[in-house]
């Protein structure tokens, strides 16, 4: 399992936003503190994942910067992890 901490500058304020994700060996991705921008990115990587699509659709339109091949394996699900 690999834990990644991602930072992305908020386009409107210039302040950093943080999401954390955990990539499991089976290709599932768990996400904590999902920001709208990161939800958009994940949605573009796996448009069929309903967990993400239901959340990315509620975001403000922030264009995801997708410049790399998809990280998600085909058919892999992503699940959201809660605040604790």
């Amino acid at each position, binding site marked *: *399992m690999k*834990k990644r901490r991602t930072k992305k500058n*908020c386009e*409107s*304020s210039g*302040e950093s*936003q*943080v999401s*954390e994700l*955990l990539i*499991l060996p089976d290709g599932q991705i*768990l*996400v*904590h*503190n*999902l*920001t*709208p921008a990161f*939800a958009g990115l994940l949605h573009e990587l796996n448009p069929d994942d309903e*967990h993400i699509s*239901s*959340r*990315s659709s*509620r*975001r*403000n339109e922030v264009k995801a910067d997708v410049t790399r091949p998809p990280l998600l394996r085909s058919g892999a699900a992503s*699940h*959201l*992890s*809660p*605040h*604790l």
Partner: protein
Amino acid sequence: MICAAQERRSPARREEVGVQSRNVRDGSESTPKREFQHAGSETAAPRSVLARERARIARAMLADCRFCAHDCRVNRLAGENGLCHAGAEARFFSAQIEVSDELELIPTFAAALSGCDLRCDFCITGASSWNPRAGTGFDPHAMAAKARVALQGSARTIMVLGGEPTIHLPVALEFVSLLPETARLIWKTNAHGSAQAHELLDGMFDVWLADFKFGNDACAQRLAKTPDYLRGVKDNLLWADDHSELIVRHLLMPGHVECCWQPVAEWLAANLPGVKVNLRSGFWPAWQAARHAELRRTVSGPESARAVDLAQRLGLNLIS
């Protein structure tokens, strides 16, 4: 108006709860927010005004801190620390718009205060939640300005969380006092607050988003170093259901379906029928989870399926 939460209560529950909270300031019976926002009422007081008054009271109460069920009674104004180790000043470690919470609440502007009164070894924000000195000083005015900007943008709600925000009631209430009256406010809590905290919080938040983490006191003691957990969390949930909209969260833990989720689910079905329940299966072995063999992995597919099946058999109102 009789709200849905009140309609759900059974007569037995009313006796069990016995809640007649008093206004902290004048001793009168407190009123749910829905009512004291009614225009034209002589007793109506804007939330911001009440929050400002209660923030001052809460600040004074730091001299004998009883905000959470640990009931430490330390003088935080004089530098004494209770089990949460929080002083008089609050700090925060995250403030941003997020979409990982319940669909009906997102996007939410979530402000996370440092420090907590529980010691969950699996806490996904353990470094900041266990350390009230983590992060940046919480300036309610600056944070309220950020929140207002968020509301003008995509945010539908404002969420105050931690760590555990209950240990920082003075600044949390001051923050509320600076927010628009119409803002939909979420209190994200571990449901380990005290009766004193409830009096201060009565009517301040539209939704209580409350964790019910453990189904028995032994697991709570072993995994979160918290004694007498069940009594406190049940009191909190019943109170919150009577005074606000309530959403109960349970983070499914690997190896804890039968010992934790099952009794939680059964209690919710019996005592809070119809309450919204978010069963979260995205556990990951964070912070010091590896101290416990069963928490060194994520939740398996069969465990998750078993948990959902139980919820459905009990008729829980699951939301996502």
